[in-house]
């Protein structure tokens, strides 16, 4: 989808990111039969302010669990997580999340959905309408602000979810496989749009995905996790120039990063060809 013509003043203000420190955070669940299942082994990890981090790994490795713990939506069984100066015990007021399903309220139109977090945080809605409209323009939804979710396609709805997250000017953006439910072409477009937005706001992003290509394309660092119980297998710095264009995906540097990650998977028995 072609980017809309940007008028001056429609660019987004930069948000300062926030550093994250994960110290020995692990998660153990109790099953119905009473046994303890370790979903996540103790993780140690540091994220710098304004970094774009991806977490990749096979199903069940605990990547979403880690994301939710950083977001304060799940409690650590052991260890601790700090976002900025604060110990995480509940969702940080400066963080926002985008999940795999758009989770838009079907009885609110696009604009009201985007402004939902503003209402919840009891900020003055009128002050944020302009920001919401700028965000919509950035993702090509400026003509849809009075439409309802059932009138939009999946990709458009997810864009609304991203706007909803960003309208809060979050210093930390958590994304749990946000493009997982979309078709391949839309997915690629969304990655481009996301980077375009992020280039302007430059907050800290934690992005969970299955797709190695997507992780390398988007991030400054890729954290590769082992199968359950998850541990950090590999913490790979991605040294590719920004802003990143889709054409970069055929470059040798890109491919070598992807290969490194895939080899890490193979060593764990994933994606092994007989």
């Amino acid at each position, binding site marked *: 989808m072609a980017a809309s013509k940007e008028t001056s003043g429609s660019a987004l203000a930069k948000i300062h990111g926030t550093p994250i420190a994960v110290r020995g955070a692990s998660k153990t669940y109790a099953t119905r039969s009473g046994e303890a299942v370790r979903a996540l082994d103790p993780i140690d990890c540091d994220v710098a302010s304004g970094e774009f981090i991806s977490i990749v790994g096979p199903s069940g490795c605990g990547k979403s669990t880690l994301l939710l713990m950083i977001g304060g939506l799940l409690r650590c069984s052991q260890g601790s997580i700090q976002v900025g100066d604060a110990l995480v015990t509940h969702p940080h007021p400066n963080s926002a999340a985008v999940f795999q399903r758009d989770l838009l309220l079907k009885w609110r139109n696009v604009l009201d959905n985007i402004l939902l977090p503003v*209402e*919840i945080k009891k900020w003055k809605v009128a002050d944020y309408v302009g920001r919401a409209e700028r965000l919509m323009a950035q993702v090509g939804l400026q003509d849809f602000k009075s439409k309802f979710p059932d009138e939009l396609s999946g990709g458009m709805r997810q864009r609304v979810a991203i706007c909803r997250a960003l309208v809060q000017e979050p210093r930390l953006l958590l994304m749990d496989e946000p493009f997982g439910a979309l078709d391949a072409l839309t997915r690629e477009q969304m990655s481009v749009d996301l980077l375009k937005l992020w280039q302007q706001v430059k907050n800290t992003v934690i992005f969970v995905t299955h797709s190695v290509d997507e992780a390398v394309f988007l991030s400054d660092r890729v954290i590769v996790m082992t199968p359950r119980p998850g541990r950090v297998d590999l913490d790979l710095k991605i040294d590719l120039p920004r802003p990143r264009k889709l054409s970069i995906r055929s470059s040798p540097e890109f491919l070598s990063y992807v290969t490194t990650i895939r080899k890490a998977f193979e060593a764990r028995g994933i994606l092994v060809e007989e």
Partner: protein
Amino acid sequence: MRDLDPDLARKRHPAFGRASPWVFGLLLVLIWQVAVPLAHVSELTLPTPWQIVSRIRIDYRILARDASVTFLEVLLGFAVAIAVAVPLALAIFYSSIMERTFYPVLIALQTVPKVALAPLLVLWLGFGFAPKIVIGSLTAFFPIVIGIVVGLEMLEDEMVRLMKSMGASEWQTFFKLRLPAALPNIFGGFKIGIGLAVIGSIIGEYVASESGLGYRQLTANAQFDSTMSFAALVVISVMGVVMFYAIHALERTVTRLR
């Protein structure tokens, strides 16, 4: 060339779709009107629609007064049912102990025929308004509770997680998410409940009343006045239909506003 798409054909003649229930109803009434004298059925057994309508016109004032009494009973019974159902439903939803405690009692209450309870209620509460309102609310109560509980339980956990990620308190989550999402189910329960409140009030009037449509029907029966008995029944049905559609209209308004 005629369009052969059946969906399009239906859309081209919306008037027909809207008129068909009225046409059907009128047809039934006509058959009734004609069949009764043809089959030599006496007015005592089955009066004709015309006789019923004429009787409603003649005794309009009496029936209007009875209708207002019954209407008030239904309204109060329904209101009491909602007033009790809402906190109970919330308790059941938010606490599994409450759920386990109350559900069996609720179901037992639902299964007991209110006709059997009615004379006991008269014994305890006397012959005034109270037994009718109590029976009306007991009858209407169950579908309202279930409507609310199911409506709240149907919500996906992920949406609650989204609200929490925005820092919403449980109060905010309830009023911005849980309640609006549950409205279709809640109104479904209301729609079933209002019909049952009517039935319950009439049952109450059967065992304790000095006015009202159920009372009118009962006295008409005692005086072998089938036409008046049917007239009262017709008014009860009309009242039930009107109240149902009032709830429906309320639902449309509330849903639009949420």
